[in-house]
């Protein structure tokens, strides 16, 4: 059972991790401790591994800072659901092996729900007792996420997906 952390539209990467908390600025700290540190202190303090992030449009807009999705990976976020993602964030999240799903209907259900259980193997999600199919993920993204990220993928295959 996972908590659902709910967000609106245009969550920018400065909200996910402010630039002042970059690993560059704090080389001795784990960037995971800065996830949503100012924008959502409740997430920062209480999120536990497997928790889900749900947002409406354009999640992750703004800076290309990969330490934003990386901080979420350090917190072992189970998946991110959104109506849409900003381009660079989406690519970064897949490269880091974070499951990202674009599905407005599921987003609506998750925003109305109180708890959920994600089953990636099975391709389903249980929201308040009701089971729903997860949306299709583009093939190249699936290959990367299944490998655990783009680095393990390239190490294993010696090439990029679809090439």
């Amino acid at each position, binding site marked *: 059972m996972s908590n659902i952390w709910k967000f609106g539209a245009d969550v920018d990467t400065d909200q996910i991790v402010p630039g002042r908390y970059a690993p560059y*600025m704090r080389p001795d700290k784990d960037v995971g401790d800065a996830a949503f540190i100012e924008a959502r202190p409740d997430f920062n303090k209480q999120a536990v591994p497997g928790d889900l992030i749900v947002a409406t449009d354009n999640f992750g807009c703004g800076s290309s800072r990969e330490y934003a999705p990386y901080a979420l990976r350090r917190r072992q976020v189970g998946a991110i659901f959104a109506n849409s993602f900003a381009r660079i964030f989406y690519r970064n999240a897949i490269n880091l092996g974070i499951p990202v799903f674009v599905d407005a209907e599921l987003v609506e259900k998750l925003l109305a729900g109180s708890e959920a259980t994600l089953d990636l193997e099975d391709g389903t999600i249980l929201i308040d007792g009701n089971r729903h199919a997860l949306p299709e993920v583009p093939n190249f993204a699936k290959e990367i996420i299944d490998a655990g990220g783009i680095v393990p993928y390239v190490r294993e295959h010696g090439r990029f997906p679809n090439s």
Partner: protein
Amino acid sequence: MSGLTLSEQIISNNVGRPVRAGELVVVEPDTAMGHDSLTPGIIKTVKEQLGVEKVANRDQIVLVMDHVAPASNVGTAQNQNFIREFAREQDVRLFDVGRGICHQVLVEEKIARPGTIVVGSDSHSTSYGAVGAFGSGMGSTDIALVWATGKTWLRVPETLRIQVSGRFRPGVDAKDLALKLCRDLTIAGATYMAIEYHGMDWLPMNGRQTMSSMAIELGAKAGIFPPDGEVAERFDVPDWLYVDSDAIYAQTLEIDLDELEPQVAIPHSVDDVVDLSDIVGQKIDVVFLGTCTNGRYEDLRDAADILQGKQIHPHLRLLVTPASREELQKAIADDTLNILLSAGATLTTPGCGACMGRHQGTLADNDICLSTGNRNFKGRMGHPTSQIYLSSPSVAAASAITGEITDPRLLTVSL
């Protein structure tokens, strides 16, 4: 067969066959830039995670120290030495602290050129579109993979065509147009698309750089000007790169500059934009003149024309951070810098300065800043309760005199 957009032409040239929007392709970028903020992590990914000791193509790589320049604490200082060591060991180009903002330096050095593909560990890498390059921002892992393999993958983007008519009226410039596009298209309006800007062959380089840097504020993958006008005078343009009248555009937006008013973005989103006349009188504490969007000589000059013989408001700080050493030197060569300093400006090292809130002018709680930069997200320049407005350099300079958001055209009339 229909024609090709500028992005399709540039990517086709790179892969050696005609490609179209929607295709996934593997390209060899001409340049893969890393700046000081992310390069330490990129180096670690290359060496520790990918197990690569020698980069694939040293000519592809450019390093710039601009985000915290010079170092602000022991951690950043150590990280910068780590980058310097890597640059020497791999024999790659490094532009060290004081040289300027990556996006300005790569254009000045003609590393970004018409027809090239330039990727960077920075979202404002769309800036290279100003010189007719396909410039796009990526995360650290993608840049690490370019350094390790020489390659990256891209989806060839659809293109949004901006068709401009008319000319800027006095007191209106490229920044106002960039903000107007954010207002009309929204922060996600061009997600996954390349933008092409048409009808502005008269627009000088500076204005093009302002526009292309802000293509990312619409979510775009690239923001490309046809390489004409001043760009064609200063750069060699390959003969295969031209505006194809048959190219297919996903969407076209027409803008009449004769109707354009000065624009201001209000906290906390870059698409929350109003006409200047709707926000005049808003009190401010800080004016920041700088960034890859508006920190060049022409921007400093526009501000100096307004600040000539005047003083900034006694309750206000004016931070001036030139985009590069060359731009600073131009401002020293005439009276530009002197006018700004005489008016009460604080000059900082060329680079990103206060833009990311890390040093050289970080905002305190409840500080209100009018910036010539490109982002006003909550907490970007410092404390999360601080507020950022965005405007052109002229509006910023006029506002520095009065301590509140001011229309420079009215200021000239009333004084």
